[in-house]
């Protein structure tokens, strides 16, 4: 976004951080409890853990880099 105001990238960062954290935490719970959803394939890869982690890290990066008030 050109000009003042909160950049769109900050909104995206917030969204990814929230989603990533939720999915990551659920993935950890799943891994520790050993209870996996029926009918879902490749649960041995623990997809929610690494995909949630990737989304959360990406989101955190965007939140920090594009936080409101940060000088360029």
């Amino acid at each position, binding site marked *: *976004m050109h*000009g003042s105001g909160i950049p*769109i990238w900050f*909104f995206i960062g917030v969204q990814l951080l929230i*989603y990533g954290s939720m*999915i990551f935490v659920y993935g950890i719970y799943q891994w520790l409890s050993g209870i996996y959803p029926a009918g*879902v*394939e490749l*649960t041995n*890869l623990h997809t929610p853990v690494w995909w949630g982690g990737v989304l959360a890290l990406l989101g955190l990066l965007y939140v920090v880099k594009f936080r409101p008030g940060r000088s360029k």
Partner: protein
Amino acid sequence: MFGLVPASIAAGSFGSLPALLALSASPLAQLKSLDIAVIAIYFGMVIWIGFYLKGRSNTSEEFFMAGREMTAWIAGLSFVSANLGSLELMGWAGSAYQYGILATHWYWIGAIPAMLFLGLVMMPFYYVCKTHSVPGYLNLRYGEHARVLAATFFALEMILMSGVNMFAMAVVMKVVLGWSLTFSILMSAFAVTLYVALGGLRSAIFNEVLQFVLIWGGALLVPILGMIQAGGISGLQTKIIANMHSDSYFHLWRDTGSFAANPMGVHWTGIVFGLGFAISFGYWTTDFLVVQRVLAAHNLRAARMAPVIGSFFKMAVPFIVILPGLLGLVLLQNPDGSRRQLVGEDVVKSCAVSLSTDKIEDPGACTSAMQTKSTLPAAYQQSVLSAAPGTELHSYNEVLPLMLVRYCGPGLLGLGITALIAGFMSGMAGNVSAFSTVWTYDLYKPLLNKKGSDSHYVMVGRLSIVVGVAVSIGAGYLVQHAHGIMDYVQALFSIFIAPLLATILLGMFWTRASRIAGFLGLLFGVVFSASLFEWVHLDPANLRYVALSEAAKPMAENVFRALWAFIFTALVIFVVSMFTKPRPVAELDGLVYGATILPKAVPVPFYKNEYMWAILVGVIFVALNILFW
């Protein structure tokens, strides 16, 4: 959003969507509370963005053109996102399941050359003349009549298309999740109306960029996990050849030498000239839905760069659309472990199960449909006829949700469903924001109230969004009760776009094209194109004349009709121009190549130069076509 209609839609598959409502099959997926939280957060975020941007959409320039403040990246991502609707995602994944990577043509040759042409060649004229819309350009070049004709047709198309998309998406949500139609329609319509009416184009663009990221975040897992399970690209190839007994699923061009040699029934001339030129250039360079995003760029260089940036992402979309379709061919399984074969929606419809008896409603029609229109094994056909547990039939268009359900548990499934909803909402927001601008600037202002204040036009724009969405909802319900209308609404785009392309190209690159020639060319071109459509619609056998082959299939009709309509329109403009008085060249400054001195570009480092990136896109585009020849 039906700009580049998926093959399965062109073949009438989504046209039979209303029929799916009659089915009693249970939803494909069951959402858990985590999934619902993911979806609810998405809705909360888009509405928050709308409220946040309300204070920055007070003037007409801010509301309709986003203040012309967008960077190249934001304009470029929004440009691609406005086209990335969920019906397209699901439809093209279904087409890939049916036809293999031939479907990729609609993402590569059907988009990339046109996007580069828009950025490098056409954008300077759109941008320098400071038009608010594509009909606005027609007004400057050809006069009021051409503008009103184009604006009326475009506004109608946007509203009806938005309604049809809304209804179609609600049907998809019902099939995938079991949601009621009214709930899906009202929920999405409410959210889109709120954030676009509050924040205008800026809000639509913001949300489109957000939606673009979510679509990738939600859909990218399917090809990654699918490729792991299939054993990589070589494993996928081996399995497809073993299952389908053909390697044509991996060739873009090899089998297009004749209509009969490929399952899509298209010829390379139709792909190159019809799709690659008439349809693709028509959509990407003259459809205001997408061009509006680029017009919002903060300077000419950003406006030229935006389509080039968009083209990189467009080229990558087959990874989340075509690849899942191919993976579905070999990975989807029935409960007994056998390969699950998807069928056309006409077969699904013929084998509908009665809600009261739990048996096939019309076993004769079902048997006939399965035997003539599918390759289901005889034993499986028997299971379907006896309505045995676990023998549900699914259509090609469901391949993407089926793959999503296969790999995504709670949370990830919610993210995938959010991606589908986001894709739908970005398309609808594109429709209503473009409608609002064209209605206000090209119809209301010149025809109804020329002397309104700036704030008055902003208010008209906001109201037009609310009214437009209400009409869309009405159109959606109309389609539900009068199914044949859907065919016509979906055809609106393809009827209009090729004549518009010819009118704009000749206007932009030929100083001799006269005012009256532009108007008559557009008018007669649309009439010609509509007549061709109706001719084939009334008697499908006429397709052989339009596509020049008896072996042609419905997909060929779209591309060849666009080609003939373009040629016809160009001929009308040429002939009429030769007999009428051209405008003085001095009046064409900023509008026509050869009569315009474009502003000199400020030198920038090579990595910021749009030509350098366009060349890179071109090289990758050619390499991909050779790789998958």
